[in-house]
């Protein structure tokens, strides 16, 4: 570890699985100071190492794993890491964020990033123990699920306290939305990073670190940590967040009429009561679980003791999974949702894309789109059929083989494209954005596709408790029924995007770092300054976020993304909400277009194409070479087909 680095470890580990070369390079100051760490540096590395010719499942697609300067320190909620690669699901920017304890262990081992290229000749796993980096045979664990793998490799390396990041059969079988799993149930899930890992025949990355992390100004750091913890625990939503986690949202989404149901055909679900967090807590979740250094502890251990799914155990379950495997599939059987969630974790599947593709299949089956697979296609609410099809997806069996390529490719092959609910090839999360106009914008413009995390305006639906903070931080005055307004949303969203980039690059969890409450920009600035010795203003830190946002945008631009893909899914554009409290709500095309134009203006992007303007990139100190490359690409826009190289 470099003596001069504090916060950061100061090292990047490069591993080529084709040649078995392992080397360590120092982290450059320029990279750290321009892109911060974790998601930001990952994005820049991916931008530099790949291009439109890169096959997402080929050896040249690097799997980049990164932690932030605050990961593994005693900063609150500092257990996060990011995984980045060209996505096999969308063909554009692939990026996934994960909690648990694996990321801090990598930092303790003395690395900020791992860049894995090439492809092993036969299955392998990595064992990283400080300066020791080994590529070990994994044929004997290829085919095991992630829970089995976790136990086996820890025994092999002789370290029960090692942290394991692995893929299950889904990643091995190159399911395009396969996930990477650590701590049995924490997932780097979206955009198919598990398939990239599987394409390299890499089964697991096992880490044990003993080096520690150096803090620049320890007394000041501890003081700031204390202030942050007080803010977190004094937040009026702390009790709810720590007790229920995201499962709290289900009941509210139903109440307010934005719970996606039956593949987004409806926005309320008659069995939503069964999927409420209160039911989970009182009947199935005896204990809480938290990630590294987190005083919220929002997750739960769950256990089903009776009935058809007795014996099901696991961790979670997040709102997104409750919706994806529940209401989106018309399934109100909570034990079956817990079973499906556990299966996704063991097999290594993104619950959101898995639930969405099954829901799409259910609707196609209902409409009689295919006779060949009719017997494999569950109907709405058929939880046994849902779990059976989930297994088939992981093992690419029958209909599962087609669905394993994701909703868009499956629809290109079987029909039903108009029923796929996606942006840029990635399935939509658990918000019916016809009722939340800001989220409609955020999800549509996200660089990784239909995504709820990169620009989430957390309090759009319930802004009143935070109206003073929103005014102070963002400069927006909340109006009644704010979530239905289009005005001011471009400013709200772009502000959140910048700060999400910062939080994702520092190593902090979004639950406490979604930038208005409980932690605010000043907290991020002070934590970074005291940990690293690098004093920035909030404006400078936000500009780093803006730079990261633009490099992620540029990645998609280079792959052919343009303005016409910054749109909500067709179903949500063309149909209004048909029932429930939000009945009649839709997305006004003129107002959405105006909102998008204002967003582009704020971002400094071309109004006709959505490409960041040269002057914007220059102001953000993104090299002019990129500017020229992108601008000249206007004349040669790639014909963009969702992962056509597949």
């Amino acid at each position, binding site marked *: 570890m470099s003596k001069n680095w504090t916060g950061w470890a100061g090292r990047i580990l490069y591993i080529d699985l084709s040649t078995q070369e392992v080397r360590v390079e120092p982290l450059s100051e320029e990279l750290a100071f321009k892109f911060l760490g974790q998601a930001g540096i990952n994005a820049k590395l991916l931008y530099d190492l790949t291009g439109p010719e890169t096959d997402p499942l080929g050896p040249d697609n690097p799997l980049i794993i990164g932690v932030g300067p605050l990961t593994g320190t005693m900063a609150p909620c500092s257990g996060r890491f990011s995984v980045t690669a060209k996505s096999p699901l969308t063909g554009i920017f692939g990026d996934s964020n994960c909690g648990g304890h694996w990321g801090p262990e990598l930092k303790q081992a003395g690395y900020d990033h791992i860049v894995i290229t090439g492809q092993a000749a036969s299955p392998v796993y990595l064992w990283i123990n400080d300066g020791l980096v080994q590529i070990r045979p994994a044929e004997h664990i290829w085919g095991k699920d992630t829970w089995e793998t976790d136990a086996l490799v820890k025994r092999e390396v002789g370290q029960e306290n090692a942290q394991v990041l692995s893929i299950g059969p889904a990643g091995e079988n190159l399911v395009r939305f396969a996930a990477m799993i650590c701590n049995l149930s924490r997932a780097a899930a979206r955009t198919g990073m598990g398939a990239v890992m599987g394409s390299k025949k890499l089964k697991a990355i096992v880490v044990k670190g003993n080096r520690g992390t150096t803090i620049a100004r320890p007394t000041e750091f501890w003081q700031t940590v204390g202030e942050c913890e007080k803010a977190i625990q004094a937040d*009026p*939503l702390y*009790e*709810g*967040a720590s*007790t*229920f*986690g*995201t499962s*709290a*949202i289900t*009941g*509210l989404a139903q*109440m307010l009429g934005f719970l996606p149901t039956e593949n987004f055909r409806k926005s309320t679900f008659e069995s939503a009561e069964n999927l*409420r*967090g*209160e039911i989970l807590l*009182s009947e199935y979740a005896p204990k809480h679980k938290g990630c590294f250094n987190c005083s919220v502890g929002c997750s739960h251990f769950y256990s089903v003791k009776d009935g058809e799914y007795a014996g099901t155990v696991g961790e979670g379950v*997040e*709102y*997104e999974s409750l919706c994806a495997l529940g209401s989106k599939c018309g399934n109100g059987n909570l034990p079956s949702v817990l079973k499906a969630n556990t299966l996704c974790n063991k097999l290594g599947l993104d619950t959101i894309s898995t639930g969405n593709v099954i829901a799409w299949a259910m609707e196609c089956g209902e409409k009689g789109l295919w006779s060949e697979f009719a017997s494999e296609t569950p109907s709405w609410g058929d939880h046994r059929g849902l779990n059976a099809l989930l297994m088939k997806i992981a093992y690419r069996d029958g209909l599962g083989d087609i669905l394993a390529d994701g909703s868009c490719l499956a629809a290109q092959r079987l029909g039903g494209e108009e029923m796929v609910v996606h942006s840029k090839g990635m399935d939509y999360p658990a918000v019916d954005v016809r009722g939340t106009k800001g989220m409609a914008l955020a999800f549509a413009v996200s660089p990784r596709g239909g995504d*709820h*995390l990169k620009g*989430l305006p*957390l*309090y759009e*639906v*319930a802004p*009143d*408790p935070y109206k003073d903070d929103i005014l102070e931080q963002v400069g927006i005055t909340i109006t009644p029924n704010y979530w239905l307004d289009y005005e001011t949303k471009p400013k709200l969203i772009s502000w959140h995007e910048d700060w999400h980039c910062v939080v994702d690059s520092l190593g902090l969890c*979004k*639950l406490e770092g*979604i930038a208005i409450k409980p932690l605010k920009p000043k907290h991020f600035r002070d934590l970074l300054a005291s940990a690293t010795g690098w004093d920035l203003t909030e404006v400078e830190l936000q500009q780093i976020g803006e730079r990261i946002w633009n490099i992620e945008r540029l990645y998609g631009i280079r792959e052919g993304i343009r303005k016409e893909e910054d749109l909500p899914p067709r179903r949500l554009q063309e149909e209004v909400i048909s029932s429930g*409290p939000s009945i009649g709500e839709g997305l006004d095309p003129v107002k959405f277009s105006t909102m998008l134009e204002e967003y582009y203006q704020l971002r400094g992007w071309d109004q006709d194409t959505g490409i960041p303007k040269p002057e914007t990139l220059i102001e953000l100190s993104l090299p002019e070479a990129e500017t020229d490359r992108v601008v000249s690409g206007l004349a040669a826009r790639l014909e963009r087909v969702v992962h056509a190289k597949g």
Partner: protein
Amino acid sequence: MRYYLIFFLAVGSRLEEIIDLEEGSTIGDLLNDLLERHGKELARRLWDDDGKLRPTAWILVNGVCWSAEGDPSDLELKDGDTLVLTTPMLVGG
């Protein structure tokens, strides 16, 4: 009366209950009744130290949010009304 999230906890992990009130009762009367039933655990989650209804206490009457800044004696309840007591916890993930 239906209870969500921290109010579910406040009333002893109860999802809902029927509340009988006299004709002409208001939201204020209902809140006083709830206070008698469920005591401090509910009170501290509903009101701040100055006795004001917390902005994180949402009361919905027949699906419509009743403003915490409203006068509790303003809204008269009717037989068959469904009320929800919840907190606006909408965190992503």
